[in-house]
């Protein structure tokens, strides 16, 4: 029978392949270890992971606390376990609930709340006695006083208030009206989700409500114009007679106000629609599209809470009417209050957006720190110089223009008002977004009040209450 000469190098080749295969396995085992050591906490803390619910058979769900130690949610033993929310509806959306599904912090912190770090001896004794161990506590970034001030200032009007710390991204307050009482959620549930109920109390308007941004969007139009004309943007002037006519279209200023001769700074401060409609025709629509993407329109937000995406629809080749409308924040553009707050926070923080977060740290029931979350930059939304220009312009809104309600000697505010039309013959949504102190920003406040009138008269005073509380005056 024919037979080939055996290959003398066969054993060496076998060794080479063996090393390669073993190397591949070492890589895979390394990945497995990395997953178990580093990635797993983020992976398993997911509302799709039904395994976590099993933990509650052996662990008493921990507390959710405000940054200064006030209890926002706790489990009480009264004829079985009851989850209690001492502040009622005030924190309803942001703290969320853990029956009927999980939302808000009850969902974000689920894993920590159901993990116990009591000492091992105590845990074993409890196991033997058949007693549940106490889960860890989640300490949030939320501030009870700011939340109260925002909630009271909104009163019984529909809307939302978002309060951020611009240099860290901490969410200090997040209010949405109308609310619901999480203590009686079980009894109210059928009504809350019924079709006859048009109030949408369960919706967190701060993160999930989408509104036309109105004149607060002039920040974006302005940024694009400044970006295209970095040295000459101040040369732009406009003569406003209350109604800007272009071809067959008319753009009116709010309540037909006549602003007269306007520099661009004045037009921004007075929120002159005619000036921005004219400005909008000079900008490059393709670049504008890119800018809005950079500012996270049509994109995912770096946010762990449930949220809606903001949308910007105008594309290259848009018709005149769409350009005129979009430039002043009407048209197809829609955004959430938290998104508006994030853009404002980036302006306040030299162009860098810090990732908004709610959990500051996790502590065991005995008060020992288990985990601490540090601020994390999400990226640059604009250059530091652009942020500085916008901050200066927003300061003038308060000192010279529509933001007079937040004009005070106690602390300098910078901001932008907006009155967004959403349906003819109905009141506009009132917007305000701003920060203070203007020269060294510590706090960002964004307010939207639905169907309530002008931003300067309705939304800015709500922000004023929050600023006053923060600065203690």
């Amino acid at each position, binding site marked *: *029978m*024919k*037979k*080939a000469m*055996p*290959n003398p*190098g*066969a*054993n*060496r*080749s*076998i*060794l*080479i*392949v*063996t090393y390669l*295969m*073993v190397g*591949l*396995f070492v890589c*895979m*085992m390394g*990945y*497995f*270890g990395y*997953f*178990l*050591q580093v*990635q*797993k*906490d983020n*992976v*398993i803390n*997911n509302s*799709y*992971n*039904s*395994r*976590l619910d*099993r933990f509650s058979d*052996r662990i008493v769900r921990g507390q959710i606390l405000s940054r200064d130690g006030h209890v926002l949610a706790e489990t009480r033993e009264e004829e079985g376990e009851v989850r209690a929310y001492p502040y009622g509806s005030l924190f309803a959306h942001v703290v969320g609930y853990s029956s009927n599904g999980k939302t808000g912090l009850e969902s974000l912190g689920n894993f920590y709340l159901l993990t116990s770090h009591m000492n091992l001896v105590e845990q*074993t004794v409890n*196991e*033997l006695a058949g007693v549940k161990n106490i889960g860890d506590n989640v300490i949030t970034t939320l501030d009870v006083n700011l939340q109260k001030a925002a909630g009271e200032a909104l009163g019984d009007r529909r809307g939302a208030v978002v309060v951020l710390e611009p240099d860290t991204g901490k969410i200090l307050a997040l209010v949405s009206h109308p609310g619901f009482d999480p203590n009686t959620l079980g009894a109210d549930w059928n009504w809350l989700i019924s079709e006859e109920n048009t109030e949408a109390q369960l919706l967190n308007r701060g993160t999930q409500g989408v509104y036309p941004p109105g004149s607060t969007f002039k920040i974006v139009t302005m940024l694009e114009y400044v970006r295209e004309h970095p040295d000459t943007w101040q040369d732009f002037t406009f003569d406003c007679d209350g109604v800007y006519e272009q071809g067959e279209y008319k753009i009116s200023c709010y309540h037909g106000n006549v602003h007269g001769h306007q520099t661009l700074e004045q037009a921004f401060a007075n929120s002159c629609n005619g000036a921005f409609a004219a400005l909008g025709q000079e900008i490059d629509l393709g670049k504008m599209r890119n800018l809005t993407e950079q500012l996270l329109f049509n994109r995912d937000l770096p946010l762990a809470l449930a949220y809606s995406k903001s949308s910007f629809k105008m594309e290259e080749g848009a018709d005149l009417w769409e350009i005129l409308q979009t430039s002043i924040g009407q048209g197809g553009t829609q955004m959430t209050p938290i998104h508006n707050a994030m853009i404002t926070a980036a302006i306040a923080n030299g162009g860098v957006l810090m990732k908004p977060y709610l959990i500051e740290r996790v502590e065991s029931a005995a008060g020992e720190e288990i985990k601490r979350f540090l601020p994390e930059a999400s990226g640059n939304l604009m250059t530091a110089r652009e942020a500085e220009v916008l901050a200066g312009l927003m300061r003038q809104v308060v000192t010279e223009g529509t933001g007079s309600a937040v004009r005070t000697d106690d602390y300098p505010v910078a901001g932008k008002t907006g009155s967004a039309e959403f349906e003819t013959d109905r009141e506009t949504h009132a917007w305000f977004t701003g920060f203070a102190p203007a020269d060294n920003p510590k706090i960002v406040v964004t307010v939207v009040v639905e169907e309530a009138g002008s931003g300067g008269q309705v939304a800015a005073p709500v922000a004023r209450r929050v600023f006053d509380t923060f600065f203690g005056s």
Partner: protein
Amino acid sequence: MINVMIEVSKYLLILLMAVYTLLNFSYFRFRDEWGQIRVCRKQNAAMFLLHFVAYLILYLKSGEERIVLFYLAQVVFFAAYIGLYQLFYPNLTRILVNNMCMLLCVGWIMLTRLSFEKAVRQFLIVCVAALITWIIPFIIDRIWQLSRIPWVYGLLGLALLIVVWMVGSNSYGAQLSLSMGGFSFQPSEFVKISFVFFVAAVFYHSTDLFSVGVATAVAAAHVLVLVLSRDLGSALLFFVTYLTMLFVATSNWFYLLTGIAGGGAASVLAYQLFAHVRTRVAAWRNPWADIDNRGYQVTQSLFAIGTGGWFGMGLYQGMPYKIPVVEKDFVFAAISEELGGIFALCVLLICVGCFLQFMMVAIRMQAIFYKLIAFGLGIEYLVQVFLTVGGVIKFIPSTGVTLPLVSYGGSSILSTFLVFGVIQGLYILKKNDEEDYEESNA
């Protein structure tokens, strides 16, 4: 109280498994036979203890007496398999027998916890497979005759795969199995073996350009039919096996590197051409984006592994049944969830240990035909472990192959027993030759 026992047993099981695994590698330190036998006896002790502790928990938690009977049946099987195998074939490699038993043991523990009926079925299949493959070492001499007929297995295997592709029943989007009279079996599990014999026989006769060309064409045909059947895991398995066997037969780096480049190009082409390939890759890159549907299986698997952590949840404390086909392709996730990440790593190390044994046999065989068979079967074994575990932990896209000896499934069990039987036979053959040689020189 039972919770405390489960908690304590968790660490005990990990400890026993770690001891067993360490012994597995310390075995290589011993050159003398008695040292090796001592290591193997310690391994047996660790395994029986682990087996006992796990079934004690299974019994206490479920309270079912049939579990005690089932446990005793398994003890009898292990004792008989380890004892009788040694009695009939004194020159066998004990450590490979031990490793087979340990992997079977882990599989049965997990299966009993998941589904008692399936565990019993698996047990019966193992008994039959063990009986059938008993004679392989005895008839291994006859395999020499098998080197004469490469085209028989080459074409037979290919024909079988084509039949599956045409009329096979569909499971999870792939044509894998044939059903006959209530039994369903997966031909690709057996074609894997005939394929290795085919390649070994061809290269035993000649490694000239013509032979390489023809063998490559037949191998490519196997791979192509598997891709068309959407059995991507097996396709990759055949590809890697062929390429490395070609490399060992020729030591030609040009073949190896061109093969890798060609495989890369073919993967890109398959990605462009077939939607089902793109789906798999998308579900791997970001399973969270489609968590309700295509990403469901792997995300549930990651939840299981992550929630279990290094030390596991303990038997019956997790929810492995949330993972689709957990007892087959995703059994590794169930092990990791309830018995812990350390335990799962030990399972992997045992698999690597088996592979190293295969490679040692390959190196020690003189005839290139035997060498290539031992090598090819070893590569197939390890690549399969890599594909299943890599898919389960999202290291690579999931390809839907089983973990040999651990996963539920008759075809997989029988073909793995065949593979281990052949390796065992080659080892014994070599050992007998050496002894004959020593005796004739004495």
